[in-house]
């Protein structure tokens, strides 16, 4: 679901009436947060509980640990040695006058008293294929607050959603640790573990779904494998696809031999033949931010694909570097000459031919060879 709707739901569950509006109509005794922020109900409840009584401005802070390490690179937050402060305030006095959020945030942050919460240090350690031999330590907590100002934050936040949702609905889990929607059709040979399935989800033979969230009407065909993915409504995977740590907006058709740590926009079509590199070999993966290439702090990170993209293949050798952003509506195809366009008309048995610029050419007659 969209970020705004998710935050609204979480606030409602915490007993707070969400109001979208401008900064000049704020009343006292309000929670203030920008629309780029995500919080879970548990964080809001604990924040309100831990705020000292009396008038004042209180600011949400999380103790540094696995969660802040996971979510905070590139985030627009204030930090010190012990904790990370988010732009989320409880205002129990007349708020200062301001014309926009940045101004209000500056003024509130000067007088705010941080209220520090501990999201815990429980993690799932996963060995990742980086050269540095690092482990991913994915925080397992349902006390999550995040600034979502870049696509990487959306990706990293979505990788935590299974733990958040499973923690919130402990009683609804089945024996495989899953929460199943209505009218799901799961093939008996499929593996579904620690996941949340929406309604009308179809999972085909030998598919595997672990630590994932699948939206309504998602269809995973034969031998599709998904780990730590968040799949939007009405997405469909093609056979023998493999996705790890990806986020898919709704309505995409997805196929890939191995797509890691990437985010795919709404209504995309991705083929198996496209290779996304996701590993920084000599340095962490860099991403675009405010026009610059900046260090994401991660050695394993894929790319972001805009809405409505159609991505074919880049040919036998081509691949997409890690940390790329493909704008909305792009259609990438193979250079026609990378494929065989003109097969030989009358081949002789066992006479070898090779593809030279799209044309089947006799190996002996070819000019292709080593450069002098």
């Amino acid at each position, binding site marked *: 679901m969209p970020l705004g709707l998710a935050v609204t739901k979480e606030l409602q569950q915490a007993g707070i009436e969400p109001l979208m509006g401008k900064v000049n109509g704020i009343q006292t005794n309000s929670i203030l947060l920008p629309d780029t922020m995500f919080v879970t109900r548990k964080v809001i409840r604990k924040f309100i509980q831990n705020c000292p009584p009396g008038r004042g401005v209180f600011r949400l802070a999380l103790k540094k640990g696995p969660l802040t390490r996971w979510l905070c690179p590139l985030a627009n937050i204030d930090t010190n040695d012990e904790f990370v402060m988010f732009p989320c305030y409880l205002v129990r006095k007349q708020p200062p006058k301001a014309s926009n959020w940045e101004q209000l945030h500056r003024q509130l942050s000067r007088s705010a008293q941080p209220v520090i919460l501990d999201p815990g240090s429980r993690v799932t350690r996963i060995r990742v*294929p980086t050269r540095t031999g690092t482990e991913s330590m994915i925080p397992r907590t349902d006390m999550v607050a995040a600034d979502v100002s870049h696509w990487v934050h959306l990706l990293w936040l979505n990788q935590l959603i299974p733990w958040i949702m499973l923690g919130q609905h402990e009683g609804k889990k089945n024996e495989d640790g899953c929460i199943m929607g209505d009218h799901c059709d799961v093939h008996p040979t499929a593996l579904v573990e620690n996941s949340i399935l929406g309604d009308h989800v179809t999972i085909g033979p030998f598919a*595997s779904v*672990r630590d994932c969230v699948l939206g309504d009407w998602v269809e995973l065909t034969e031998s599709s494998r998904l780990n730590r993915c968040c799949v939007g409504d009405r997405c469909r995977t093609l056979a023998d696809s493999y996705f790890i740590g990806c986020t898919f907006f709704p309505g995409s058709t997805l196929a890939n*031999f191995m797509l890691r740590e990437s985010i795919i926009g709404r209504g995309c079509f991705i083929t198996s033949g496209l290779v996304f*590199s996701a590993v920084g070999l000599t340095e962490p993966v860099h991403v675009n931010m405010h026009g610059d290439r900046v260090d994401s702090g991660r050695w394993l990170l894929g790319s972001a694909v805009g809405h*409505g993209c159609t991505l074919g293949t880049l040919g036998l*050798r081509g691949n*997409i570097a890690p940390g790329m952003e*493909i704008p909305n509506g792009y*259609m990438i195809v193979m250079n026609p000459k990378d494929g065989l366009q003109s097969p030989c008309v009358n081949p002789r048995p066992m006479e070898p031919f090779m593809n030279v610029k799209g044309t089947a050419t006799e190996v002996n007659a070819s000019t292709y060879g080593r450069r002098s």
Partner: protein
Amino acid sequence: MKAYIFYTPTFIKPFGDHVSQAWVMNQSLSQCQQRACDAAGLELVRIKDLSQVNSFPCVVMPDYVYVSEKALRDFVVTAKRKSFHNARLAIKRCVSTQYSLALQDVELFDWEGKRPLVAYDIWLMDSGPIPKDTDSLRKVLGDRCQILEIPLRELTIPVKQPMIQQQARSFDFPITSTVCCHLSHWTHLLWLSHLSFGIAWMELARSHRLKTGLKLLKALATGSGKKWKILAGLNQVGSGCDVHPTAYLEASILAEGVKVGAGAVIRNSIIGPNVTISDHARVINSVIGENCLLTENYFILHSLCYPGSVLGNPKTQMAVIGRDVYLYGWTSFLDAKFSGYIKVMHEGKPVDSHRSFLACCVGHRAVLNARVLIHAGREIPNDLYMVSRPDDTLIDIPSDLPANTPLVCDRGSLITLEELKRHERQGD
């Protein structure tokens, strides 16, 4: 009795390691030799040269010899039983000896005759003198020592190979624990890794007779006579292993601390300590060294992997992977030759490996992260760092290109297909 293992300047290319550090049975060759000597009741003494042999009777062998526990023990016991005071270890011509014979520096006796034998450089001697020069060892001791054929039992399994040019191919895969080999080439490590499945199981069974017997009985009881069910019950799983319930293990040996993900398959393989086999990875007839990471959906077949590597190619078969290799990013190993045998470099020149199916050997610490094909039989040197060509990788995506228009990769960036064709027409 002492077993003297003398130093020879034998180094395995492309690793550059001395042969005593060659990786066999998930151990170094020197550790294997120690184990074999212990099992045969011999006190191993490593010497720089043959002049240091000072205790008789003794067994003498160069440091490039791999000998299984059973082979060495049978050699000592048979020599004693037959009252051979000076003997040389030999094994009859059979599937297992021929399996690893290519490029080996061994002596063949009566090879096409009635009693063909392969003689290895393992000598039992009751007295000196021993030639000081290792080169003349065979000549001098060959006259003094009788050839002693050790008993051998082997099971062979017919394996079909791909049919090429309408020619059906198959070979017999041997399972035996009586193995000896002179190591001088990386292909020998590969052949030994294929044989290690049988050796390891027999050595395990001998050292833990009761436990293995009970395991076999249980597998037979639950297997209802079906071989696959019996094999699925025959696994040795070390302490601290974490095996997902949907993973499938068959006749494999897992050391301690191995992690096996969902849907992973491990068959007839030896897995070292603290290896991580991720979800849906498949390991078949392979030896995987300590602390390796096999990423999701990786497929490795008939291969040997030194410790500490990260492996994530689509498929690897018949390959030797060195220590701390990083193989991730669609580098593919060609592993077949349609006519004739695959050639490998040996002693500075290309020679037949006597195999049609063989991939390559990747040196230590190599980084292969490019979409390239590597020809069969090649040696990738240590520390090779291979990445994709910059013009093959999309590293710059302009944001002002038209939507829903075919775009192609051109020199690391995107241009429209129309523009590419225009450039080609203009001969750019």
